């Protein structure tokens, strides 16, 4: 079942056409990777799908419902969760409170002024942290986490909103090989539980090892989509990545 659909998304920054008529779909339980050289438009596409940026034309639908206005909070409420390439946890809080805050937002309970939030959704938040491998870090200051754990926390905060779709902009960037594998396994597990995952990743082993389908972006256009084996043998993709003709990068 297709959850997230994008049709003909285009966006330009001044004279620079960042994305041209990009279409894609992600189904429940599916892991779709988007790859492409730096500057291909991967992060821009995430920003459109996450509501951080407004497309100049095109349409985004979730479960057939159009998300008309680019508003990250509204996108989140309709079921799109995302993590950012640069981790951004809530630096003044404990790990647990970060997840609790996202849960409070999800359950629309942020307009409560008096009762301490300490116990709000505590078991649920601890559960999410445990799923992300942070069960033993709940009481630490979020800002003091090691980098791989910050990446996990970012994922836990995204999961706290109980998303149907996860947009993961380089979830494993900057991680050493074993940690990268652990992170990708975690993501695969989430997909198995029915979440639609769209991710980007520079490490081709992760992409070809975990993606069900791959979308290749180049200069803001989709130049190929298909299964990992389709993509591996696609001559145009080889051109872009292996050199024949690399205008920009």
């Amino acid at each position, binding site marked *: 079942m297709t959850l997230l659909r994008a049709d003909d998304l285009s966006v330009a920054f001044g004279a620079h056409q960042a994305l041209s008529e990009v279409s894609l779909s992600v189904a429940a339980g599916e892991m779709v990777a988007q790859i492409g050289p730096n500057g291909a438009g991967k992060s821009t596409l995430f920003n459109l799908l996450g509501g951080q940026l407004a497309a100049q034309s095109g349409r985004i639908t979730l479960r057939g419902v159009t998300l008309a206005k680019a508003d990250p909070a509204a996108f989140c409420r309709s079921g799109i*969760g995302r993590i950012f390439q640069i981790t951004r946890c809530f630096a*003044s809080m*404990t790990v647990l409170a970060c997840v609790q*805050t996202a849960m*409070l937002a*999800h359950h629309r309970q942020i307009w409560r002024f008096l009762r301490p939030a300490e116990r*709000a959704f505590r078991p649920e938040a601890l559960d999410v942290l445990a799923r992300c491998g942070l069960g033993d870090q709940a009481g630490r200051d979020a*800002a003091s986490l090691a980098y791989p754990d910050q990446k996990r926390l970012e994922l836990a905060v995204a999961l706290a909103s109980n998303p149907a779709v996860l947009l993961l902009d380089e979830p494993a960037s900057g991680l050493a090989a074993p940690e990268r594998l652990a992170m990708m396994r975690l993501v695969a597990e989430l997909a198995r539980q029915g979440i639609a995952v769209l991710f980007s990743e520079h490490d081709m082993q992760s992409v070809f090892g975990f993606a069900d389908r791959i979308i290749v972006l180049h200069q803001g256009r989709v130049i190929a989509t298909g299964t990992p084996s389709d993509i591996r043998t696609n001559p145009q993709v080889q051109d872009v990545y292996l050199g024949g003709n690399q205008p920009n990068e």
Partner: protein
Amino acid sequence: MSFALQALTGLAGASSLFLVACGLSVIFGVTRVVNFAHGSLFMLGAYLGWSLLRLLPHTPWGFGLGVAGAAIGVAAIGAVLEMAVLRRLYAAPELLQLLATFALVLIIQDCVQAIWGPAELSLPRPPFLRASITILGGRFPRYDLWLIMAGPLVLGLLHLLFARTRFGMVVRAATENRALVAAFGIDQRRLFTLVFSLGAGLAGLGGALSLPDGSANIGLDLRSITDAFVVVVVGGMGSIAGAYLAAVLIGVLQSLGLVWLPQGSLVLVFVIMAAVLVIRPQGLLGRAGSETGQPDRPTPMRAASAGGRIAFAVLVCALALAGSLAGPFWLAVLTEAVIAVLFAASLHVMLGPGGMISFGHAAWFGIGAYAAGLAATSLAAPLPISLLAAPVAAGLIALLIGQVVVRLSGVALAMLTLAFAQIAWAVAVQWTQLTGGDDGILGIWPGLTPRGYFLLCLAVCAIGTALLRQTLFAPFGLALRAARDAPLRAAASGLPIARLRLAAFVLSGTAAGLSGGLSAFAKGSVFPASLAIDRSVDALSMVLLGGVQSVSGPVIGALAYTGLFDTLLLASSHWRLWLGCALLALVLIRPQGLAGRGAGRAA
């Protein structure tokens, strides 16, 4: 007077505005420091100009020489200030920079007063400046024509300096990307000193040129800095052409406004500012993102432990006991201190968890004070109703103003709050039918003994402060902090950032209004001073003294500051100087505040 003449007068005013603002913009563009003392440099220019022009021959050449001398003198003072103070602050959070430069404002004020005395100094206009000419059937002062030309002239010279000289090229490069300039091996220290000195010189020039139309007086500094802030924010921070455009827009509209709605001319400025900022938060010619300076890095904040609660309870009991024993003087000091605690705690909500720097918090205090005072005197309302009127009035106005304020961030937000407070102050001074103007509102008595009223204040402030702190650890407080810590992440988790900030702004204004209402009854009177800029800085100093990121900070800061203040005021006629030095020392030596975390120690 005809429309065209009024517009010409506006253009002359625009030149003065531009001269104050362009130096501020140049300094901010390169150093990212908002120089609160810029108005003081302007004032120094006026005083230096006065001294020089009195000695020099009253000829056009003498006048030019005197003005140039004043500008050079102020540039030299600027260079010294940069090397002594500002140089140490470039990496500090913008809030501390603002506070340190405000300390300079206090110090310069006292020094000027010591040198030139408190009296207003005006310059008898030399004959060649007295003439006026006939334009469009009306008489127009010739000096104003000169002024009209001075603005574009300075704009052109600055443009040549920045476009054609090597120094200008380096300055422009530094405005774009400071790290890059350092990487090219340019001596950043010298560059910053030169830029600051240039900006100071421009302020001095403006001050000296303002003499023939006005006078050198002690109030010039704060008046001109407010103008400069408005112009720079509207024009776009760091953009000189933007500053001129904004100066013309404001100068002309203000001058025409004087004719059309004389009462509303000040409000008009705020409306222009708000309108521009709603449409273009970065100002007319500013670039997106240019309005933010050095961000404050959020640090962990934890709920008070059981020990903290007990300490708070013990403190309240100790204050109650002290109030029962104190004589009339100390009772008044204690009443002021507990009111200050609520005031500081209200600012802390905005400043700490809200991440919004308010440089005009006195506005809410003053609005509360006037609301309570008016309710008690004009409406003869009983004490509880009058006290209720204070937070309600402040909260409602905060709700209105907040719609604009929360769209901004960083320094631009700080300046907008300051501009609003200054306008509220001006309204309090000018709307004499309602506020009594400078005479204030007198005879606001609570109908309780001073001791009884102290206990009431203590109860209200203790409960109010405790409730404010409670909200910081309630779901609302977490959401607010999330929005400050990582706005992108918070929005992606479904948090409505603008509404959260607005709620914090209103909450903060409401609580400050309540403290203002309490203060009106404590003093028995309300004066425009209750919303003057000094009051805003009191609040900031208290919060910073205690530590922005510590929850106990505002309480400790307010008590320490009130104590410090009363000691200084008693001990010395130069309290501004001492207070300024104390603030500077605080910022330079213990920026995390008295209650702030040192190295990993819990707050």
